[in-house]
């Protein structure tokens, strides 16, 4: 079977894309893959931007700020028992945002990051609750808040980069 030069050229671009995918098995969304997909004429499927997901990410950030401020207060306001509901609120925010993100296909990146963020919150909760009525030290609280904020800031930026369509 003879292929026209145009078809051969497209075929070679698709082969190049496949090769790049093969040598980057760990990357699901890097620029190199997007560029190769564009070159090969492959439509890169990206979920649309969701105002609900965006609002959810901002809620997580706000409620985590509130939680950290409460944990930084003096005893007994800093105790885990007093702040359990605030931990639960952040966990609920994360679950709700994940559910909103899951309504869109190909939203794996956001969902995966939210899953891992939820795990981080639960480990932080375990550390704080282990202290009983003692206030958790501010160094640890600030480090956790900074790390948490960094993820949320990036997740918000990632969501804002998606095409609007919802």
């Amino acid at each position, binding site marked *: 079977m003879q292929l026209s030069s145009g078809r051969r050229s497209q075929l070679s671009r698709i082969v190049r894309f496949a090769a790049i995918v093969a040598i980057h098995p760990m990357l699901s969304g890097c620029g190199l893959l997007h560029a190769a997909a564009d070159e090969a004429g492959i439509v890169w499927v990206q979920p649309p931007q969701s105002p609900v997901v965006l609002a959810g990410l901002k809620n997580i950030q706000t409620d985590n700020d509130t939680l950290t401020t409460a944990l930084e207060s003096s005893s007994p306001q800093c105790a885990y028992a007093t702040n359990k509901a605030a931990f639960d609120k952040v966990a609920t925010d994360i679950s709700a945002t994940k559910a909103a993100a899951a309504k869109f296909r190909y939203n794996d990146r956001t969902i995966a*990051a939210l899953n891992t963020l939820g795990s981080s919150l639960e480990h932080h909760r375990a*550390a704080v609750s282990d202290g009983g009525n003692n206030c958790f030290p501010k160094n640890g609280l600030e480090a956790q808040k900074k790390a948490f904020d960094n993820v949320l800031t*990036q997740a918000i930026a990632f969501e804002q980069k998606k095409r609007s369509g919802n």
Partner: protein
Amino acid sequence: MPAIDVNSVADDILNALKGSIGDLGPDELAIVRQQASDIATGFEAVAQDKLAGQITDVQAENEVKALADTGSAQLQIQLGLVELAAKSAVKTGLGALATAAATAVGLGWAGPVIQNVINGL
């Protein structure tokens, strides 16, 4: 007085992460460098609390787990790494951190704690 040299440890973690993730462009490298720095800085805060006797080994372990998770989440959202790859990268970074902690004064507790975190990832 800092428990660890954050910049030096961040360099060790960066090299470990680079080895785990593979080829990186300048933008991706900057992201990974930031992650290495965040892990080192976060651990330094945990180490200060532990050295001051304000938290137990178990609390320190949970805080390092929380930091490892946020580090993984960053690699997932910013680089698009899948969960296993992100955790694998963070594991290698934590390995470098454990090695650095092993030679630091007052951080004898940190090696087993970090190893527990690595084993649990």
